[in-house]
């Protein structure tokens, strides 16, 4: 454990073996709209996933996942929002780009990577199919908490997941995430029909 951490510390503090990519991004990219230059600064998680090509040593991953877990903020009470609003959020791929107005609500881009409602035939496959998600797992408080947490910060569960940290990055609001939880877990949601 200590050895791995030491190794990680060396990797992260030593100058990049080839070229300083963050430096290149700072030199060759410019802020536009809401996409400001602070976005090219890597946090520890991004550095580790880049350095280890998304396969960090298990001990290090566990440690950093625990850090990410600390970012989770769960609202009190039921986490089940409105699945109909959730469906619209899942459909929308807008938000957070340099063309999007800063205060306009973002979408979750969910269908870009996941199958959800069977009615939507145009779905991506980067993430697993979520068809019948709640039907297979129920919709009790534990699973609600898991789904909310996974959408809020997927990296708390799988450090180098390709899924964005949609809550932690400020992309989706608490209510929007609850609506997505309902899309996945509400028995009335088309996902579970």
């Amino acid at each position, binding site marked *: 454990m200590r050895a791995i951490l030491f190794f990680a510390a060396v990797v992260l503090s030593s100058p990049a073996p080839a070229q300083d990519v963050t430096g290149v991004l700072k030199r060759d990219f410019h802020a536009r709209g809401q996409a400001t230059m602070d976005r090219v600064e890597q946090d520890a998680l991004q550095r580790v996933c880049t350095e280890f090509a998304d396969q960090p040593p298990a001990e290090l991953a566990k440690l950093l996942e625990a850090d990410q877990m600390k970012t989770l903020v769960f609202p009190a009470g039921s986490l089940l929002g409105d699945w109909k609003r959730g469906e619209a959020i899942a459909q929308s*791929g807008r938000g957070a780009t340099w063309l999007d107005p800063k205060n306009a609500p973002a*979408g979750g881009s969910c269908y*870009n990577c996941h199958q959800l409602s069977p009615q939507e035939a145009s779905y991506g496959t980067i993430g697993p199919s979520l068809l019948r998600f709640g039907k297979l797992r129920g919709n009790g408080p534990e699973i609600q908490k898991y789904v909310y947490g996974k959408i809020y910060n997927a990296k708390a569960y799988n450090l180098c997941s390709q899924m964005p940290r949609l809550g932690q990055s400020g992309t989706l609001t608490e209510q929007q995430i609850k609506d997505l939880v309902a899309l996945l877990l509400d028995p009335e949601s088309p996902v579970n029909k």
Partner: protein
Amino acid sequence: MSSMNPLRRLSLQAAAALVAGLALPLRALAAWNKEAFQAKSAADALKSLGVASSAESKDVVIEAPQIAENGAVVPIEITSNVPNTKSIALVIEKNPFPLAAKFDFAEGAAPYVKVNVKVGESSFVRVLAEAGGKFYSASKEIKVTIGGCGG
């Protein structure tokens, strides 16, 4: 199906119009048929084109993708094998202005056209071929999917 086929319903309306002496006057060829092109429903567009009734026909062939990755460009290839076809009209039922194109063919041209059109949302496209004063039709559904990252 208990609901009446819209074309049959249309044919009744057109027949009534004929009886009332309201049939459209013959137009000079190729003057843009404003009334038909500005019609907001397929039925109104067909009425303006003077299509009183039409028969489904296997001789009218529509070649088009069933799924379009983008509605901005949907290629549609139309062939009429009905002898003496003199015109072909293309109607995209759910577009804001459903009539998309009408071509008149004289001797020297085959009743064939391929064209790229915009299909606003998943819709049936209908083709009407005119021959010997009658109309022959075919239709095909085109699903327009959401493509790309959508951002």
